[in-house]
């Protein structure tokens, strides 16, 4: 079952690499993503057995992240179908931001997209520390050409930055792996699978394990987009097409977050979760503040969304670092809500981009008249991401604040609320400018909104509002079980 989940996208990717016609490729893409979604739903009903002698096990948290990832992937495929099918080939329409819409090597793009989905599901599935590292590195490989979709000079530079920073990060996490092995050298176990490692964690060497954690938090932190290492995120998201950036910030950051969560659980079993928690809280608050401040003077709305993902990942890291059971549930819920809202926001920003052909906020005017439906989705998404009531993020923010107060870390609460207020202020200001402002120059409606492009972002936003109003009891105790057997 697990092998099937991983192989379908990869095989689809390879196969679509060789097909000639474009709509056949799109057909393969949609079939693979549909199958992948069905399979990941099925895993919930009868959980699959492990394979590759224990390397790949689909445990509870893996299932959740896998389902989330495949749902997002399915949504962006729907968007991609309508997006790729209508961009006519090698018709060099250059808009004022220097985009060349001729994506001749279409086949590389779609195959890489499918392999990207395969590698991400590999991350959710991997049980061995080393295997986790390989799969996260593979996701970097797969997503690099996706960012380079528009073949412009700035997207090339964004890809180079992305690949460069992530490769240094991956190197550091490899050192982390080595140190982890050193720590467990004479602790009686040889194979480092997450399921078995927690029993031997107590007699591992605490000092070395802590250094290993530091390397891991920096290495995987670059993939999660924590503060000092987050700079690839805004440039990659600004340059990548919108459904790729929705996948990037919706699914890719989750996988890296999953890596950090597993390492944190090992440290908890080894009894040093107090110190590691401190590092995570420090990094989280630092990234919330940097994201809030650097978004203040930003006037590119896709970069604005990227900074808000940095900030929400920071909040999730703080929650994970608090070391309470309820905090882990809150962080997982926060991740789910965030990826849903962020994906819908990126998709509707894609609609805005294709209508206004510019990423600069000051050039976008009277959004409510030109794009009535997707501007509503955009406004609802922005209010959801800022954590106003109907959205799930408001709920998780309350949970996280409760945990911070329970663990009496008042200074963190003050800094976090300061960051959130600055972020809220700058985001709402920019969105109001875009939504309400009115200029007489170009009044005519040239762009008709496509149905296929609106449905995915609407569905995603709908899910966040459902999570915002009533949290289904089953989901809550499912996540509580996760945080229990995480042992935190």
């Amino acid at each position: 079952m697990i092998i099937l989940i991983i192989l379908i996208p990869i095989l689809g990717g390879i196969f679509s690499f060789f097909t000639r016609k474009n709509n056949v490729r799109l057909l393969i893409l949609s079939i693979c993503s549909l199958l992948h979604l069905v399979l990941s739903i099925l895993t919930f009903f009868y959980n699959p057995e492990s394979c590759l002698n224990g390397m790949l096990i689909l445990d509870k948290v893996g299932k959740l992240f896998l389902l989330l990832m495949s749902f997002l992937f399915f949504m962006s495929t729907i968007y991609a179908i309508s997006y790729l099918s209508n961009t006519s080939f090698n018709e060099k329409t250059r808009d004022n931001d220097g985009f060349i819409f001729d994506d001749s090597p279409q086949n590389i793009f779609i195959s890489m997209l499918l392999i990207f989905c395969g590698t991400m599901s590999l991350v959710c599935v991997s049980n061995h520390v080393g295997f986790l590292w390989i799969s996260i590195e593979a996701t970097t490989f797969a997503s690099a050409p996706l960012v380079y979709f528009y073949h412009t000079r700035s997207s090339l530079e964004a890809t180079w930055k992305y690949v460069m920073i992530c490769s240094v990060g991956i190197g550091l996490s490899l050192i982390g792996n080595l140190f982890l092995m050193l720590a467990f050298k004479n602790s009686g176990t040889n194979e480092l699978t997450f399921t078995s490692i927690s029993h031997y964690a107590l007699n591992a060497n605490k000092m070395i394990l802590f250094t290993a954690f530091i390397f891991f938090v920096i290495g995987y932190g670059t993939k999660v987009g924590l503060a000092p290492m987050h700079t690839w995120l805004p440039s990659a998201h600004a340059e990548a097409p919108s459904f790729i950036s929705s996948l990037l910030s919706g699914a890719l950051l989750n996988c890296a977050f999953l890596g950090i969560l597993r390492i944190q659980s090992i440290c908890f079993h080894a009894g040093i979760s107090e110190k590691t928690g401190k590092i995570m809280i420090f990094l989280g608050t630092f990234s919330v503040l940097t994201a809030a401040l650097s978004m203040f003077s930003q006037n590119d709305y896709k970069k604005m969304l990227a900074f808000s993902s940095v900030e929400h990942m920071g909040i999730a890291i703080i929650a994970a670092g608090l070391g309470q059971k309820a905090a882990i549930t809150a962080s997982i819920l926060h991740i789910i809500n965030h990826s849903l809202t962020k994906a819908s926001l990126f998709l509707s920003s894609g609609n805005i981009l294709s209508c206004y052909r510019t990423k600069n906020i000051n050039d976008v005017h009277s959004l409510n008249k030109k794009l009535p439906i997707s501007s509503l989705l955009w406004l609802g998404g922005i209010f959801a991401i800022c954590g106003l009531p109907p959205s799930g993020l408001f709920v998780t923010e309350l949970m996280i604040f409760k945990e911070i107060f329970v663990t009496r870390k008042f200074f963190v609460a003050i800094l976090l609320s300061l960051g959130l207020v600055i972020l809220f202020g700058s985001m709402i200001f920019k969105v109001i400018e875009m939504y309400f402002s009115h200029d007489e120059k170009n009044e005519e409606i040239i762009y008709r909104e496509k149905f296929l492009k609106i449905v995915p972002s609407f569905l995603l936003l709908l899910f966040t509002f459902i999570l915002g109003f009533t949290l289904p009891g089953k989901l809550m105790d499912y996540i509580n079980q996760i945080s229990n057997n995480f042992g935190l």
Partner: protein
Amino acid sequence: MNNWFILIFTIISIMNFLLLASSRISGCINILALQGGIISLISILNATNLWGILTFVFIFSIKALIFPLTLKHALRLTNTRREIEPIIGFSTSCIFGVLILVFSYWLSNKISYHFGDVLKLKLTFSIFTIFTGLFIIISRTKAITQVIGYIIFENGIYLLGNTFLIKENIIVELGIVLDLLVFVLISGIVIFRINKTFDHINASLLMKDDQKGVS
């Protein structure tokens, strides 16, 4: 057997100093190839079965042959001769090299405090190579020198895996997978002829008039 290893490690760290000091890129590539060859020697020394020999052949071919050749080819394509105006000058980077050595010695002391002294010397040199690689990435502006820095960084990781004396654990061989990443980097340079790393001028913030159209 152990002092053979120590000899290899000292040669590698000397090479690091050379790499830090040399400004001509083609010279760096030659030293790099030499270092790759020596590292593959280690894997043959503690190879116990077919799998060990296989890894030796693989590492030797990649580090000593393929990378240097592709880098030289890339050099010719992007017609860069030497690393001009690096961020940190060559003599100062040597001083930094000494500092890195001292730091890695302090660090390996701290680490090997738990595992006895057998590790200390090899640990210092592997950490030294790792941090020199990172330093070269940080201090040079040419894309190719950065890739070279990255290869050194990755050699350092391989050495680190080796010093922890963990036999036949798949993680040690993961270093090879890292080469795949380096391969992507190099192909990036070759295909897209990236010469200087971009002094990334964020068009939106510093909107110069002439740049508005192109950005």
